[in-house]
């Protein structure tokens, strides 16, 4: 199988990895770069659990070829904060009970970050729109929306 060497800046760290032409960014992240925080839900862009920021834009990593991320920056939820020093979004999700099984959380937070980067003070409609590509089977979404709104209200504009 023909492979190509690509470079990706993953959560700030420059990584080199060999991938095939048909390999998705999701597969490369999980299987070759140890980024298992990015989840494989449906593999076809319907659930959003694989969402990452690619050069600052929230995308489904299952619908992006690894090769298309060559030379680009990828941000995952692990790059947002640590257990000792969590990102406000991570903290808010936990505080609001917005994490039940946790499977959608990684992708949800990336969509939330993309929103707040673009619109620091979104209303609830804008939040719902921003996470409309992320499915959650547990929380009923309210707690997730509350968490994101909470962060937006607390952040200095």
């Amino acid at each position, binding site marked *: *199988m*023909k492979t*190509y060497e690509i470079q990706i800046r993953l959560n700030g760290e420059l990584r080199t990895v060999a991938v*095939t*032409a*048909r390999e*998705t960014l999701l597969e490369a992240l999980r299987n070759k770069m140890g980024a298992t925080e990015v989840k494989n839900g449906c*593999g*076809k*862009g*319907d659930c*959003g659990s694989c*969402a990452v920021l690619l050069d600052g*834009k*929230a*995308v*489904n990593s*299952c*619908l*992006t*070829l690894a*090769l*298309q991320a*060559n030379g680009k920056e990828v941000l995952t939820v692990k790059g947002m904060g640590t257990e000792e020093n969590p990102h406000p979004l991570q903290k808010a999700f936990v505080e609001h009970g917005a994490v039940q099984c946790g499977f959608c959380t990684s992708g949800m937070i990336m*969509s939330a970050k*993309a929103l707040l980067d673009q619109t620091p003070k979104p209303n609830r409609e804008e939040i719902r*729109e*921003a996470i*409309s*590509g*992320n499915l959650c089977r547990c929380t009923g979404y309210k707690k997730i929306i509350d968490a994101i709104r909470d962060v937006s209200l607390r952040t200095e504009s």
Partner: protein
Amino acid sequence: MADIEYLAPRDLEEALKAMEEWKGRAKVIAGGTNLIPYMRAGWVSPELLIDFSGLKDLDLIKREDETLSIGALTTIAEVASSETLRSFSPILPNAAGHLGNPLCRNRATIGGNLANASPGADMAPPLLVLEASVHTERGGESSREIPLDQFFLGPNKTVLEQDEVITQISFPKPKDSATGSQTKFGLRNADALSIVNVAVMIEMEGKLCRKARVALCPLAPTPIRMYRVEETLEGNEITAELLDECGDMLKQEVTPRLVSIRASAEYRKVLSSVLFKRAVREALKGVET
């Protein structure tokens, strides 16, 4: 699984050369939001993927005098948020905002949506009523300009040759007396394949409709213009009775698939008539009397 190669051409010329060389064996990838699922499902098996996503020259929204051009690589998100487009006509950014979900829109391209030619292609109805044209290039052949209502041949089939690619989509600036409306109905508020997606463009002269353009999908194997409805509206005052007549005509003329997927054919017919009338009334609200 069969081996597959990848090429990221530096410019359009290199891309077209590769398409010519690998004619029939290569597939263009842009956003990949359709192609990657097709590949994973085994529906397409190209030997070479030609990645257009790096061709930044094709990612633009440009106004030149009275013509607006959108590069094929412009993402749906960029179309949705373009103030330039919105000032030309809000129906195109509105339709873009209803396509898929935010994650999808950041990758999916307008050229890809048209080239994929789904019977429910979300960008088609507004582009059809804007009387858009598709501009294409082929390696070693002359470029073409194809009116969009001659572009679609059937489900996922267009007039594009195997080594031909869309470079841009253009349409003339609507007259000041023109007003449009676009609406989509799906089973969910986001991430929904259209049950009905309808767009209208009306040009009024006093009380009379001077020009009407109506397009919708997926009510046929391809997105379609409703020419008879348009002719019926033109030259007349758009009364409630005329609108009802056109709604009934539309219901008779559309040919949704008979197999009930997401909605029955009967439901789609009725809904398309309702949404068409609603769109016309909405568009007429924008007319200054």
